[in-house]
């Protein structure tokens, strides 16, 4: 009984990493997308961040506004990259790739989680970019190895979370046109109903409630805690991790149930 379970689990983990490996191999053949993606966080930090920092319109307590939004912009660019990840599976469905993987004995959850992790690894380049920009702008970063490792893990998990969410949408809408529509509709509310570019404290009551239900809020809080020197967590890093991990697990489970719909 236990040995079957262990066998299933190791098989699942092994297959997940096979899927991730091959998604990443594609990057090695064509890495232009990594470069073009650098633009968006640069615009947010260099233009939006600088202007709002000067205006002093948003009070962020004892940390400067630019320091405050640097982790927020990292979370945002992870969200923006991950939320459109599902378009790939629609493309793979229009070809016959999804069908062929589904006709193989690979566990469905491994197909979903493997793709999620690859999205996660892809977004690590966003972390490098945001760190470079932060250095340039004089943000006081925490360079302790433990903090850096935490940032790495949080970014990968957050991208896994949102790309799996994206994959679920793709399984439901199935066409590129509808997917782009839904993607556009979801990104901005997720972004604005979070603590990415302003603190929750200054939000009206109804928005506070929504932002507490938004996983991005916990991603931002965790990143802010680990990225900045001398920053403290609003919710506690443990709760942040718990929310992120639990949401990801639930989404992978739903994704694995819905993924076979792409073959029909």
């Amino acid at each position, binding site marked *: 009984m236990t040995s079957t379970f262990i066998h299933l689990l190791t098989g699942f983990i092994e297959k997940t990493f096979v899927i991730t490996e*091959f998604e990443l191999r594609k990057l090695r053949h064509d890495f232009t997308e990594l470069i073009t993606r650098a633009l968006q966080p640069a615009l947010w930090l260099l233009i939006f961040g600088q202007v709002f920092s000067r205006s002093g319109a948003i009070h962020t307590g004892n940390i400067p506004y630019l320091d405050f939004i640097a982790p927020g912009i990292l979370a945002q660019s992870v969200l923006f990259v991950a939320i459109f990840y599902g378009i790939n599976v629609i493309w793979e469905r*229009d070809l016959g790739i999804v069908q062929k993987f*589904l006709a193989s004995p690979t566990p469905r959850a491994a197909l979903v989680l493997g793709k999620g992790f690859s999205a996660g690894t892809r977004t690590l380049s966003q972390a490098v970019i945001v760190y470079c920009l932060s250095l340039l702008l004089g943000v006081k970063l925490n360079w302790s190895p433990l903090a850096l490792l935490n940032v790495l893990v949080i970014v990968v998990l957050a991208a896994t979370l949102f790309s799996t969410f994206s994959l679920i949408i793709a399984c439901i809408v199935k066409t590129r046109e509808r997917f782009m529509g839904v993607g556009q509709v979801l990104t901005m509310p997720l972004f604005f109903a979070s603590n990415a570019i302003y603190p929750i404290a200054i939000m009206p009551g109804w928005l506070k409630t929504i932002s507490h239900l938004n996983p991005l809020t916990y991603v931002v809080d965790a990143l802010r805690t680990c990225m900045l020197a001398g920053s403290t967590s609003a919710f506690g890093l443990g709760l942040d991790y718990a929310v992120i991990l639990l949401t990801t697990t639930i989404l992978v489970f739903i994704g694995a149930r819905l993924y076979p719909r792409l073959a029909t």
Partner: protein
Amino acid sequence: MGPRIHRQRAEGRVGLGLDDFPMSDTVIEIKTLTRRFGAFTAVDALTLSVNAGEVFGLLGSNGAGKTTTIKMLTTLLPPSSGEARVAGFSISTQAVDVRRSIGYVPQAVSVDGSLTGYENLLIFAKLYDLPHREQQARIREALEFMGLTADGGRLVGEYSGGMVRRLEIAQSTLHRPRVLFLDEPTVGLDPIARDAVWKHLVDLRANYGTTLFFTTHYLEEAESHCDRIAIMRQGKVDALGTCKELETSLGPGHTLNEVFVHYAGSALDSGGTFRDVSAERATAQRLG
């Protein structure tokens, strides 16, 4: 049948002969298999059996239910009712065992253009749990078998249509499946590429005893390669037998074309849905 597959896998035998698959074995057993989409019945109480080592062609006009049948047999689509066993396993209750025993080449392009030919094979070697030390040899052998040895390191995006199809066949037979399902394997290919694909498929059966179950529009392909064919119309099998049998069933001097029109109906009464047609044309465009 089940235990034998496991024995083969355990021994890791290479190059099974026809003797390993006696022709009398039934490898696909379909009983009153039905699939409805809302009020529309795509496959209607289909009953059919295919012998091990047979080359079996499923013919019919667009929308006759060929692809839906293949999707159910490959466990991609659950049936509404009825049952089928593939390689001895139930498609409903033993889906994972079925998946281990089959290979599937969908109609649309199913290899990844942004990976090399070698990488496309490597990922499936890993997903099908080929023993580590055998992976490289199997991949090399598969590339050689399909005439792709020189192109294994190239990106598949640069392949020609015929090469893509051959790679897809290599990919879905790497684990030596008992049954290979092919949905319109030669759609969009020029006659020379079509011949090359068929040459490799015939070799596959001769060397490994693989049962080939495929759909096609091309009657001459069915005539020259199939042991038996079934003609589907509106979800049912209207005619079943060898090409010769079907031709003589209409009386002396009939061609397979006349048999097809007789059983499948004129091309006017159906043409498939918009999605079927656009998918087929897109495939033809990508391969051609």
